[in-house]
Structures are given as structure tokens and as C-alpha cells.
């Protein structure tokens, strides 16, 4: 029963996408297909979660049949267990909210410069949901790769939704190519595993993780890690996420907050025993996570575009999740990371949608133009406050519990476990990130809620906007998990059994984040400069541009690649094509020269006959 529900979570959105694209005549019809698909997914994942929760063991059934490869049979199966059911529920909820929200957010199509694209948009979001569900439920690495890349192409399409903007087009291509470069790792891992372990079934791999030759497991794990870093936008493959903000905000909420970026962490959690068997993999993951965590938080500090701030904050929070999983002491419990994944899905989606509303009101991303919303939109600001509080990790919101769980796990690994130096690094950077997160959340809140409203030129600022209900309702729905997900610890599903929060770290963590928030809220009150303005202008620009990694990437990859391509194209024309063209000209030239021999004189011809005879004669005598 649970497994059929799992298949439904994949099938319903997929069918909705296809029907939406083919049969939807009008915009509303397309929207309805989208919402129906999303709600179907929610119901199905709820049933699945309920089934798993009430004791249903991990089951799997064949989904796309069996493939006999000669080296072993490939079973493209679907599996459900508490990890997959909980994540799928989160994904379904966020997806539903985004579908509903988008119906109102993407208005004003149909004019020549904004052509009707909503049907395609809704279908792509549904397809994306189906792909994410496939990743979550896949019991075979190749099937997972299918969902994995499906998400990649959907994110490309959605980022490129406003394809009339050059930046959107560039961001879409960049997003797909960087993630695709990362996916090479997963594909290489699949090739490696098919080669040696003769199977890519996750269940079999987990079971056989110990027996596999150490070198193969390590190589496979590291390669998969490359895929994770690409998909979850970890350093150094994170540059695509901030640019991905070119896409419509609901897209960012769904893809770049709740689901796709989390898929990487999900994969590590799913294959934790394999990562465990690979000795070096988890330490590297931890180091990358800690670097990304701190770097992204600092970059978020210097942003003045609300969406880019949230993007960098997402990178930092995903690093948190990865750290949570990386410091796991034994192959069983990836709980802290997963728990943070669930809570982050809730509050980050809320934050993005709220940001969407703000942008909708002042139709500009810049926080400086959004000042003084506290008075005009009190309800929105409450929601913003809730979200930022959860982000900063202020009790009793969900963010606090999951962040503290990660820190506790890190501290536990550092102190009792054999986590050694790496666990300490994670712990320290975790605390520092908590501080910086507190600062930038507070700064954001103060700028948007309390800042002085910027004078808008066309003077429509005076009449108070009423946000359409379709945009407000999803916010309230998402506010529930943001606030209450902590309660789930009371009777946690078995995936979250490993979560426990030690009071010492909880206290220090809360202290640090409260300090951060308090300082950034009050500093403008007491006449000091805003936190970001306090930074020297050069440093701020450097941080705002994300450490100028884009220029590095451009110099190292893009420019040499284009030069090589031009060389290849010219080479194809001149070098490789030289021989056939050359041989034709030689043949024509030879034809002309040989034709010259026909001098017309009869006894000239006899000369050639005699010459030929003499030559043949000599050859004959020699050969006899």
C-alpha cells in the first residue's frame, strides 16, 4: 500500500504535467492541472508517510522493469522508508504551496513582451515535483540519476522562464552546465559500481558496502560527492545558485530552497553506509560543508538584493545539513542533517514566498526600496519575522531544534566520538555561522520592516496594497511547520530517532544567534551604520560578488573552451578536410599534366611505345 502510494507521488504530478501541456487550453486550466497534480502528490505522500509511520517496513516494487545487461540485471525499483516518506511529504507540501502561489504571482501574461508561458511553467513545476519524488523513492542509482537530471532540466527551464532577459538565459545555461558537470560524478560512480559491484541497486549496495573492494567504494563515494556538491550548490560548484534567482520567486522557493538543493544531502543520507565504508569521503564532505557554511553566510551579509541574500543563506544552511550528515558516527544515523533538511524546507520556502510578496509590492528585489513594510503590511512582516527567527535558530522555532541537533551531533562527535579535528572544525564554523546568520537575518528584518520607505517615482505607494488571497494562504500553511516542526521530536518517526539536543550547545547556540539578531536590529536604532555598510567598501563588493568566483570560472573554463572550440572548428575545415580537397586538386592537376603528353605527333606516340617496350624488356630480362 505504501509503495503504491509512493508510485502515485511520482505518477500524479507527471501525468498532470503531460496533461497540462497537451490539453490545457487556457491559463486557468493549466493552473488547475498543476494544482491537482501537486495536491495529489501531497495526499499520496501523506498516505505513504502514514503507512510507513504505522509500522510498514521498507518495501520496494519494480517501477520501470528489469534490464539484463549481461554484467548483471538492473532492477529499476521504487522503495519507501521513513527517510523517503518524510522528505517526500515535505516536498509535496512545498510544491502544492508553490503551485497555488504561482497562479497569482505570475500575472500579466498575454502581452507581446510577456507572452503566455504559464501552461509550460505549471507543467514544468509538476514535472519537477515528479522528478524529485523519483529521486526520493529511487531504489536504483540509475533511476535516481534519471530523476536527478530530470530536476536539472526542469530547473534550467524554470530559471529561463523570463527568457527575454539575457541574464536569465545565461543563468539557466550556467545552472544546468554546473550541475551537469557535477552529475558527471554520479554517472562515473554508476559506471564504476556497474563495473565492479555488478549492480546499482541501492539496497544491494548498502548491504554489500563492506565487502566491496575499498578502492572502488572510496572512488564511487568521492565521485558521488562531486555530484552532491554540484547539485546542492556547495563550494566550489555553488556559483549557479545566486544567479538562479533570475527565475520567478516561487521557483526559487521550490527548487532552490526546499527540494533540488536538498537532493544532494538526501543522496548522502540514503547511501550513508557506502560513504561510511569509504574512509575519506565523509571527512572531505565535512570540510567542504564547513567552508561553504561560513563563506556563504558572510556573502549573505553583504547582499542588498533580498533574493540573493536568501540564496546565499540557502547555500549556508545546506552546508549545515551536509555537516549534520557528515559528522554521523555510525552508518545508521544521518538524522540531524535530515531533520535540518525538513525544517529548512519549511522556513526557507516561507521566506522566499514572503520575499516574493515584497517584490510583488514594490516590484524590485532591492531591500533598500522595501523599507517601512512593518506599517503597510503587518501580517506579511509577522510571517517574515517568523521565518527569519527560524532561520536564525531562535527557540522555540523549528530552525532552533534542527540547528542545535546538528551542533550537538558535531559536539558529540568532537568530544566523545572519534570525529577528531574535523568534528571540531565543523563545530566552530557551525557556531560562527549561527552568529553571522543571526546578524544577516536581523539586518534583513530591520531593513524591510523598519527601514524608511523609499520615495517611489510614480507615487502609487500611498494606497495600501491588498495581496491576493492565493499568495497569502500558502504563507500561513508554511508558517505551521516553520513554528511547530520542533514538536515532531516528541514522537519522532524512526528516521529522526538519532536527534537529541544537549542543553549546553542549545544554550550557547541560542545565546550566539540572539546576540547576532539583537545587535543587527539595534545598531541602526542607536545611530550606528548598518552592519553591511560598516564593512569597508572593497570587502563588501568582494563579498557581494560571491568572492568573484564567476570571473575565475570564466577565465579557467569558459574562455579556454571557446578558444579550443574555435580551433576545432577551424581544424575541421582546414586540417581534416585538407586531404580530400587536396587529393581532388592533385588528381585534377595530374589529369591536366598527363593530357599534355598527347602531343599529336604520330611518331611521338611510337616513341612512347618503344620506350614502354624497352622498359618492359629490361624488367622481363631482370625478372627471368
Amino acid at each position: 500500500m505504501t509503495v503504491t502510494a509512493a508510485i502515485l507521488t511520482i505518477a500524479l504530478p507527471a501525468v498532470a504535467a503531460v496533461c497540462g501541456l497537451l490539453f490545457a487550453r487556457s491559463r486557468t486550466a493549466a493552473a488547475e492541472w498543476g494544482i491537482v497534480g501537486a495536491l495529489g502528490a501531497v495526499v499520496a505522500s501523506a498516505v505513504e508517510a502514514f503507512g510507513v509511520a504505522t509500522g510498514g517496513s521498507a518495501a520496494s516494487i519494480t517501477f520501470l522493469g528489469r534490464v539484463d545487461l549481461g554484467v548483471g540485471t538492473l532492477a529499476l525499483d521504487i522503495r519507501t522508508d521513513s527517510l523517503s516518506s518524510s522528505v517526500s511529504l515535505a516536498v509535496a507540501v512545498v510544491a502544492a504551496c508553490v503551485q497555488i502561489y504561482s497562479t497569482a504571482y505570475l500575472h500579466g501574461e498575454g502581452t507581446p513582451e510577456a507572452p503566455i508561458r504559464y501552461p509550460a511553467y505549471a507543467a514544468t513545476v509538476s514535472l519537477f515535483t515528479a522528478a524529485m519524488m523519483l529521486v526520493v523513492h529511487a531504489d536504483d542509482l540509475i533511476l535516481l540519476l534519471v530523476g536527478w537530471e530530470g530536476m536539472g532540466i526542469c530547473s534550467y527551464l524554470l530559471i529561463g522562464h523570463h527568457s527575454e532577459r539575457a541574464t536569465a538565459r545565461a543563468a539557466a545555461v550556467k545552472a544546468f552546465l554546473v550541475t551537469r558537470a557535477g552529475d558527471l560524478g554520479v554517472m562515473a560512480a554508476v559506471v564504476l559500481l556497474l563495473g565492479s559491484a555488478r549492480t546499482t541497486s541501492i539496497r544491494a549496495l548498502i548491504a554489500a558496502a563492506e565487502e566491496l573492494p575499498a578502492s572502488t567504494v572510496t572512488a564511487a563515494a568521492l565521485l558521488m560527492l562531486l555530484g552532491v556538491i554540484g547539485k546542492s550548490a556547495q563550494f566550489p560548484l555553488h556559483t549557479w545558485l545566486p544567479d538562479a534567482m533570475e527565475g520567478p520567486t516561487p521557483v526559487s522557493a521550490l527548487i532552490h530552497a526546499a527540494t533540488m538543493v536538498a537532493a544532494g544531502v538526501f543522496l548522502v543520507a540514503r547511501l550513508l553506509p557506502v560513504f561510511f565504508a569509504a574512509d575519506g569521503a565523509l571527512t572531505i564532505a565535512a570540510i567542504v560543508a564547513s567552508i561553504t557554511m561560513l563563506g556563504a553566510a558572510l556573502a549573505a551579509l553583504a547582499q542588498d538584493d533580498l533574493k540573493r541574500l536568501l540564496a546565499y543563506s540557502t547555500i549556508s544552511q545546506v552546508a549545515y545539513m551536509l555537516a549534520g550528515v557528515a559528522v554521523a558516527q555510525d552508518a545508521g544515523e544521518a538524522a540531524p542533517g535530515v531533520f535540518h533538511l525538513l525544517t529548512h524546507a519549511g522556513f526557507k520556502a516561507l521566506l522566499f514566498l514572503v520575499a516574493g510578496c515584497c517584490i510583488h509590492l514594490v516590484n524590485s528585489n532591492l531591500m533598500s526600496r522595501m523599507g517601512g513594510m512593518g506599517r503597510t503590511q503587518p501580517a506579511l512582516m509577522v510571517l517574515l519575522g517568523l521565518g527569519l527567527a527560524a532561520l536564525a535558530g531562535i527557540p522555540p522555532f523549528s530552525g532552533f531544534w534542527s540547528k542545535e541537533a546538528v551542533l550537538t551531533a558535531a559536539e558529540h562527535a568532537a568530544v566523545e566520538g572519534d570525529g577528531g579535528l574535523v568534528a571540531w572544525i565543523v563545530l566552530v564554523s557551525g557556531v560562527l555561522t549561527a552568529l553571522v546568520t543571526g546578524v544577516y537575518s536581523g539586518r534583513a528584518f530591520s531593513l524591510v520592516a523598519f527601514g524608511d520607505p523609499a520615495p517611489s517615482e510614480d507615487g502609487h505607494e500611498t494606497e495600501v496594497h491588498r495581496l491576493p488571497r492565493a499568495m497569502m494562504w500558502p504563507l500561513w500553511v508554511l508558517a505551521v511547520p516553520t513554528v511547530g516542526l520542533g514538536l515532531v521530536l516528541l514522537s519522532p518517526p524512526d528516521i529522526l530517532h538519532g536527534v537529541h539536543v544537549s542543553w549546553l550547545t542549545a544554550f550557547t547556540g541560542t545565546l550566539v544567534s540572539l546576540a547576532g539578531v539583537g545587535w543587527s536590529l539595534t545598531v541602526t536604532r542607536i545611530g550606528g551604520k548598518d552592519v553591511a555598510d560598516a564593512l569597508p567598501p572593497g570587502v563588501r563588493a568582494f563579498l557581494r560578488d560571491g568572492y568573484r568566483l564567476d570571473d575565475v570560472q570564466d577565465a579557467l573554463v569558459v574562455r579556454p573552451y571557446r578558444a579550443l572550440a574555435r580551433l576545432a572548428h577551424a581544424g575541421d575545415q582546414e586540417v581534416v578536410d585538407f586531404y580530400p580537397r587536396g587529393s581532388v586538386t592533385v588528381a585534377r592537376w595530374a589529369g591536366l599534366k598527363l593530357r599534355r603528353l598527347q602531343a599529336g605527333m604520330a611518331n611521338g606516340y611510337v616513341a612512347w611505345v618503344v620506350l614502354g617496350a624497352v622498359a618492359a624488356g629490361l624488367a622481363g630480362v631482370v625478372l627471368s
Partner: protein
Amino acid sequence: MSGAELLFAAFGLLAATAAFLAVGSRHVVHAALWLVVALGSLAGVYLVLGAEIVALVQLLVYVGAVVVLVLFALMMTRAPIGIRDDLFVGKGQRLAAVLAGVAVAGLLGGTLLVAVGDATVDPDTARGQAEPIGRAVFAAWALPFELLSLLLLAALIGAVAVSRGRQK
């Protein structure tokens, strides 16, 4: 050096020099006349080698008919009389001609001399008489001679048809 050898040397030498002059002379009619001398002395050579009938045929057909035809042809194509230096092709092709001639002579002569060495042969004059040749022709070579007659007929008709003008 037996008597026959001496006779053969004389005729041979005469034939060779006459041939070279026929080919090299700058006077058109002299060339034809030297050809007559060459072919005549060759008839002598055949006599020495014991091929009596062949010598006769050589005298009759070659010297009698062929050379006469050549002379007539020279007259009818109003070939220039007297010493002319336009009877030879350009420098390049003449050199090639000399080289070709020497090469052919060398190749033939060399191969045969190596094969022949100093073998001597005593030609039996009776073998070349008319009677044995006639008997051989009728006993063994009927088909070639019939075909030969056909060939001569064709050559005749061809020559007449070609030289006769357009038949109105």
C-alpha cells in the same frame, strides 16, 4: 674465318651501313636508294644463311615492290629534292630517338649475344630450297597463308577505297 663467314661479313656490313645511311641521309631520294641497297644486301645475307627462297622473296617483294612504292609515294607527295635539313624532328626528340635506338639494339644484342655465345652453325643450303619450304607450307601452314591472302585483299581494297574520292 671460313669463306661463308667472309661472305656473310661483307653482305652484313654493306646492309648495316646502307641502313644507317637510309635512315640518316638528309637527301630524300638518297634515303630511298640506300634502302634499296640495304634490302638487296640482306637478300645476300639470307643466301649465305641457306634460306634461298627467302632471299628470292626478299628481292622480289621488298626490293621490287615496296621500295618502288616508297619512291612513288615520295614523288606524289612532292617531297623536296636536294639537301634539306627539315627532314628531322626537333633536337629533343632526335636525341630521344638515338637513345631509343641504342637501347633497343643494346637490349636485343646483349641478351642474344649472352645466349648465343660463340656457338657456330653450318647452314645447310639444301634446307632453304623451294621444295622443302613448299612442302612445309602445304603440310603445316595452310591457315596462315589463307589468312594472308585475306589480309592482302583487305589492304588492297582499303588502299583503293581510301584513295578513291567521294563516290557521288
